[in-house]
């Protein structure tokens, strides 16, 4: 029986209440451990078409008569369009239309950041559109820029109210402490740089609209577009079969989609609007910089008595205040905690979610300072973490749906033990050490999400759901789940996704939510199909007949199963956990850092595809290494203009930057969570990387790193500070 319920839904650490139609989820979870197909390594079912270059990405799509767009973006961090004349652009060959401020919401006159869209031109070729763009006559009046986040906070230039989260009494906790450590940590702006840039191709068909877009959320785009255009939602069809990475930056429609829609409307032609790499690095979002001023108080035995944090998110001209205080609030048991988080509104491009937004940054600060505390107390860092283990949600006391962090710690021990041997390999100039950090993050997914499963006379099944596979391998995971439930080989399942007109509503692919949101729906749909087949078998008096025999009778008839994602367990906190242990070497004369090895142990419930899971872990760790060591969006300090928009200046990790990566998953189903017990794995692996590396550096050299990236200058600064401290003499002990 269907029921309408109200339930809580979390995406990227933000909660909202949603209405939900649920069916009774009568399915028992499968027993723990690898099954026939689920829990065993599977290669990607769409691997071949991607590898052979046959998969058609939005970037590859060419519709008949399609026009190309170039977008005029503000070159200044803060400016007003004093005058703009599109006529010269319109006069150029091949140009079909041009639009400017006032003609579309996303084209603005008041430019709060460099890269905001001001005008757009479409033409037969991209080169013509570019030439036309250059012909637009525009005068900008430059305005005063505000780029220092602390100053923005002081001036009250904020996005939203400061977020204060408090439990117990911080002052009392500090008074009870035997030791108090404080530290200021800073993290930089990091750019997503998905290999496929943000782009869309749109076409109007009568009063309907087709949007082909590189997106993590086709339903979100459909709703955003339909509501902003005042169209019935089903008049907007959103398609994304293959996409070249998103990492959180492709959750929304974006200016480029709206520009293409308007130009297509005016020209009655299909229109492509694609960001260049340089536009991508201005206007498609970023992980914002943070400043974290932290205090930890503890008793001599290591018990945390106080955690305090003042956090500034350098959010940019728009966006939201990421939960950078989350780790401090949630990771450890502590009675007295107070955090305040400000979102500074500055003349910099708006942030967007980037793989565990806030938690990557916050974990770096918290876990780095925790190691400083461990050293002061002379307690083994791993012991200190165990000592303050939270058995219920540290922030609000709710029980966890499942938590196997202690098991993660236990499995990390052999890696942690290596530190003696690693340190012993240090030389005069190259110091080696090992560091660890814990991980906490969301990843439980949530409703609603639906799937259909179609079984034909040939005994093969197709999963139909309008979700997207952003490269995380969800197509394959869904096929595994359906194959397992139906009891047919994986090769007999295909997955049809990526089209809002051809399948039911499916979850966003963000917040590590795709598998935990979609998986249960797919399993339910497959179970529904299986039940129907069993009923037919029963009616025919052959209850034990294999599936193939029953459906073999179908001819053109089909078995159609449908399934929905049930709610998350009421009153429980669904989270993912883990720990990573990093081994580094530091050249103390040149400040060069090598990450030699990272061991990762994560608890994300049941593992559907161990092969794909290890790829996710490796990918997350490698992005984490870029974030920790080399990636840095730099701007001109006087004007706020961005200087690192190209991939020679913005340094992503290359093949040569990759350490040995050892990954392990606990693979314990979360018994409270859905019919699968699986949580998401997209984000957890990036969360502790920076902290584990900075702690390893501390272990190796005694130097305390306070800023990301740990560039040569930061490393050498930290080494100098450590040497000075040693010379002056360590501060009196406790």
């Amino acid at each position, binding site marked *: 029986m269907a029921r309408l319920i109200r339930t809580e839904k979390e995406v990227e650490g933000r909660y909202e209440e949603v209405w939900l139609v649920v069916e009774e989820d009568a399915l028992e979870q499968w027993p723990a451990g690898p099954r026939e197909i689920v829990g065993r390594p599977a*290669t*990607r079912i*769409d*691997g*071949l078409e*991607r*590898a*052979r*270059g*046959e*998969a*058609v*990405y939005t*970037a*590859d799509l*060419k519709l008949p008569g399609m026009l190309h767009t170039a977008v005029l973006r503000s070159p200044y961090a803060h400016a007003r369009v004093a005058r703009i004349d599109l006529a010269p652009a319109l006069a150029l060959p091949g140009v079909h239309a041009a639009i400017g401020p006032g003609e579309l919401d996303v084209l603005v006159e008041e430019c709060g950041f460099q890269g905001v869209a001001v005008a757009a031109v479409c033409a037969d070729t991209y080169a013509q559109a570019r030439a036309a763009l250059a012909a637009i006559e525009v005068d900008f009046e430059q305005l005063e820029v505000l780029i220092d986040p602390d100053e923005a906070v002081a001036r009250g230039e904020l996005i939203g109210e400061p977020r204060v989260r408090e439990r117990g009494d911080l002052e009392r906790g500090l008074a009870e402490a035997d030791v108090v450590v404080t530290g200021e940590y800073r993290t930089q702006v990091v750019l*997503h*740089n*998905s*290999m*496929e*840039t943000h782009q869309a191709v749109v076409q109007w068909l009568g009063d309907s609209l087709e949007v082909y877009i590189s997106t993590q959320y086709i339903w979100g785009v459909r709703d955003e577009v339909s509501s902003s255009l005042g169209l019935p939602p089903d008049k907007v069809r959103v398609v994304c079969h*293959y*996409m*070249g*990475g998103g*990492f959180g930056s492709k959750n929304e429609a974006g200016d480029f989609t709206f520009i293409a829609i308007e130009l297509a409307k005016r020209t009655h032609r299909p229109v492509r609007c694609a960001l*260049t*790499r340089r536009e991508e690095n201005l206007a498609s979002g970023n992980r914002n910089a943070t400043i974290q001023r932290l205090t930890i108080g503890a008793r001599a035995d290591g018990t945390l008595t106080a955690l305090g944090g003042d956090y500034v998110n350098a959010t940019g001209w728009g966006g939201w205040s990421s939960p950078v205080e989350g780790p401090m609030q949630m990771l450890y048991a502590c009675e007295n905690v107070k955090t305040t988080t400000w979102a500074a509104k500055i003349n910099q491009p708006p942030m967007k979610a980037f793989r565990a937004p806030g938690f990557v940054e916050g974990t770096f600060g918290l876990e780095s300072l925790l190691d400083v505390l461990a050293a002061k107390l002379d307690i083994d860092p791993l012991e200190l973490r165990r000592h303050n283990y939270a058995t219920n949600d540290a922030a609000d006391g709710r029980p966890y749906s499942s938590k196997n962090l202690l098991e993660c710690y236990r499995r990390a021990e052999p890696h942690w033990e290596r530190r003696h041997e690693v340190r012993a390999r240090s030389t005069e100039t190259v110091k080696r050490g090992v560091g660890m950090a814990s991980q906490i993050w969301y990843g439980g997914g949530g409703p609603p999400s639906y799937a259909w499963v179609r079984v034909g006379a040939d005994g093969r099944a197709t999963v139909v759901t309008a979700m997207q596979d*952003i*490269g*995380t*391998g969800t197509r394959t995971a869904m096929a595994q789940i359906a194959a397992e439930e139906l009891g047919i080989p994986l090769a007999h399942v295909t997955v049809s996704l990526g089209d809002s007109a051809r399948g039911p509503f499916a979850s966003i692919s963000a917040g590590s939510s795709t598998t935990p949101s979609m998986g249960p729906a797919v399993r339910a749909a497959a179970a529904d199909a299986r039940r129907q087949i069993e009923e037919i078998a029963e009616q025919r008096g052959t209850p034990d007949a294999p599936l193939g025999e029953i459906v073999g009778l179908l001819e053109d008839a089909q078995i159609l199963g449908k399934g929905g994602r049930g709610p998350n367990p009421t009153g429980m906190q669904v989270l993912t956990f883990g720990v990573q242990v990093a081994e580094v070497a530091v050249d103390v004369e040149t400040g060069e850092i090598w990450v030699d090895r990272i061991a990762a142990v994560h608890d994300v419930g049941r593992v559907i595809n161990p*092969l*794909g899971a*290890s*790829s*996710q872990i*490796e*990918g*997350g*760790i*490698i*992005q984490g290494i870029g974030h920790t060591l080399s990636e840095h969006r730099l701007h001109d300090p006087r004007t706020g203009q961005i200087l690192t928009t*190209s*991939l*020679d200046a913005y340094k*992503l*990790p*290359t*093949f*040569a930057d*990759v350490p040995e*990566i050892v990954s392990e998953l606990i693979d314990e189903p979360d018994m409270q969570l859905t019919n699968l017990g699986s949580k998401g794995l997209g984000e957890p692996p990036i969360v502790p990387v920076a902290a584990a590396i900075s702690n390893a550096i501390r272990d190796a050299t005694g130097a305390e790193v306070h800023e990301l990236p740990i560039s040569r200058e930061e490393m050498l600064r930290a080494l100098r500070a450590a040497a000075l401290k040693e010379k002056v003499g360590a501060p009196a002990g406790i």
Partner: protein
Amino acid sequence: MHSEVGTTLAEALRDELSLTGTKVACAEGHCGACTVLIDGVPTLSCITLVHTVGDAKVTTIEGLRDHPMVHAFVREDALQCGFCTPGQIVSAVALVDATPKPSTEEIRHAMAGNLCRCGAYPKIEEAIRTWQD
């Protein structure tokens, strides 16, 4: 083909010949996604002017679709979003043509010009190591 002077090989392949297996991710020589072979040598098609190619032989991913390397990539899960993958495979094929059993060092050196934002590197290394299996 009648491209204007200044047209790049990548543009000619993708826009004029509709060979979209070759991807463009930066269009300025900074990422390796657009790698093709020119007379067997890995080259960035996004900064190669098509008029300089002359009668050299250009091999794109379309010409390598049945190469064992493609299967090695799928088998080892050496791709995630897949956008960098054609370029990776082209570079990898050139490497093993010259050195059928490359060492880890050789793989890392030869593949350093192909960025993968998804971080499939460890599995790419494995695919290249085991491509003949």
